[in-house]
């Protein structure tokens, strides 16, 4: 397709290795690149993004070609990985984790002809769009089930880092559980990693020992579910249906469905209509999907969960509606007021009933 000479020269100047990518330029198809945080076999976050990539191949395989780099750390080395994809001739690059934000912008400035899509970030440029999923809508469903089913009223939340996406997840989960059980508490452990199965397992054991009988995960491996399975307790899958790893413990899961968005953006490149946008879709758009409930989910819990789901589908329900109190009991959102998406995107405080180290 349209390979600009300017871009080619720039690529050659940026890295001597660019010559290795030259044969690829001979191809007719438009290249689309993906930067993945974990291995595509993590059965969670990266696995779901890779499913989205495969959906693009399936839908537009005659016009586009996709390439990806997995296990890219969220540090300065991500810049080199993104640049490699530019030099390989990609016209559109998805960087699929929060920690690639500044690196994406830096490389985007070097390659103005390449379009970038950064997942879960908030910084944009003329050739950098951002996109995100309203995972917190799914967390509201999980919190509803957990609040209804927990006997101890103490729930565990295995998190990664204290970034807005995770804070939103914790708050949505806690507020939803408290709708079912006003005394419900949520204990949070952030393990400072997205993927560390031994630490995820040990953290889950710790939460259980501190009284949690349901633990939800915001990290990427099924480790927590396997511990819950061994203890005869319950949890939820993250990013994908993880019931194969814990047939009894797995109540349901939040599935991230990226395919439709990726296809839409790839089509925009083909049509020449791509523009820098900020997309934050959720359940109503089919981007956040709740897996089938397991047999262990009680009918009452399932009914309440379905109500939350239906409310998000038709827009009549939003868990982030006041009154909302913070951990110190101060009212942060007045009764009846809905938090805007802009406010949610930068939320950095936990709600009442969340017990966390920071």
């Amino acid at each position: 397709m349209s390979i600009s000479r300017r871009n080619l020269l720039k690529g050659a100047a940026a890295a001597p290795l660019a010559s290795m990518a030259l044969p690829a330029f001979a191809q007719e198809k438009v290249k689309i690149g993906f930067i993945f945080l974990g291995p595509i076999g993590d059965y969670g976050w990266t696995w779901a993004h890779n499913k989205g990539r495969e959906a693009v191949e399936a839908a537009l395989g005659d016009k586009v070609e996709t390439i990806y780099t997995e296990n890219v750390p969220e540090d300065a080395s991500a810049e080199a990985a993104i640049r490699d994809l530019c030099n390989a001739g990609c016209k559109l690059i998805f960087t699929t984790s929060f920690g690639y934000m500044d690196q994406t912008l830096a490389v985007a400035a070097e390659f103005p002809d390449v379009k970038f899509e950064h997942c879960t970030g908030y910084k944009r440029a003329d050739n950098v769009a951002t996109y995100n999923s309203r995972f917190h809508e799914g967390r509201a469903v999980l919190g509803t089930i957990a609040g209804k089913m927990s006997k101890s009223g103490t729930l565990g939340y295995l998190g990664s880092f204290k970034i807005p996406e995770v804070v939103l997840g914790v708050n949505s989960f806690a507020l939803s559980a408290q709708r079912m059980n006003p005394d419900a508490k949520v204990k949070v452990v952030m393990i400072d990693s997205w993927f560390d199965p031994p630490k995820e397992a040990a953290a889950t054991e710790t939460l259980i020992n501190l009284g949690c009988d349901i633990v939800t995960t915001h990290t990427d491996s099924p480790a927590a579910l396997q511990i819950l399975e061994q203890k005869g307790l319950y949890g939820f899958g993250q990013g994908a249906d993880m019931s194969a790893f814990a047939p009894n413990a797995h109540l349901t899961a939040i599935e991230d469905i990226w395919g439709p968005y990726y296809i839409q953006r790839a089509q925009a490149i083909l049509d020449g209509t791509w523009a820098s946008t900020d997309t934050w879709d959720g359940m109503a758009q089919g981007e956040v999907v709740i897996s089938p409930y397991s047999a262990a989910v009680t009918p009452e819990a399932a009914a309440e969960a379905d109500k939350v789901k239906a409310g998000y589908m038709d827009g009549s329900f939003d868990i982030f509606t006041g009154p909302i109190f913070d951990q110190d009991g101060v009212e942060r959102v007045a009764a009846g007021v809905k938090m805007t998406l802009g406010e949610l995107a930068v939320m950095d405080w936990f709600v009442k009933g969340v017990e966390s180290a920071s």
Partner: protein
Amino acid sequence: MDFMIAAIITIVGLTTPILLAGLGELVVEKSGVLNLGVEGLMLVGAISGFAVTVFTFNPWAGVVGAAVGGALASLIFAVLVLQLNSNQVATGLALTIFGTGLSSLIGVNFTGRIVAPFGSVFPDVLAKDPFWKLFFGYSPIVYFAILMVFVVGWFLKKTRAGLILRAVGENDLSAHSIGYSVIKVRYMAIAFGGAMAGIGGAYFSLVITPMWAEKMTAGRGWIALALVVFAGWRTGRLLAGAYFFGILMALELYAKAAGFSFLPSQFWAAMPYAMTVVALAIISSRGTAGASAPACLGKPFTPST
């Protein structure tokens, strides 16, 4: 009481893999070889053990498979550093990269599968009892790890073979001149180290989370390396040090879950390494010969004849 027992069980789970891998590396280093490939060997062991268990439905066979897998991978390293005298640091690092890649490659077909966890083999009346599970509730690998601490300690201190191994590590030329095969001793030490790292890796894929996930050891091999230095190359201290590291790791999680925020979490994560530096400083300032690195550690063996 129940709370303490559950906490101790978590600590044992955190400790056992680094104890196994550290014990293997201690023997390797005692023979004068520095193998920085422990992380890669653990991953090879994790996938070997998991794969064998998937095919045989027998976790014991899986543990043997993990040991064999780890030993075979370590022999690649052995050929390079012993036969070809390649730089041990560079070769060890390369072994980690190789082991990570090899385990991912083998693991492609095992992702998404699970096996039954390799738990306690004692009767449920002991293994599931609220109190007695403190002693009987563990995978056999846990008891094996502690037993091996004493076996290795006895071997190094009390047996003739152990004396030869230490002689090779302290002064390879002297050992060579009185007729011992330095290369042969080091081959065996490296293979033992590989087998132990492999079993340590299998503890992840068979016991803690009975599944395969790429890079599932998440850096525990590096902690095992630090542990050997922290222990001053002594088996008793290795056991104590492994549990000390395990307690630190558990403390981090308990502090967070209980809502204490008096120290940033990165502080806890850095503790094993910081403590290793402190231990090194203490060891070198006291200058006690018995607790310092083997004299030939990391040096290629190049006899003039």
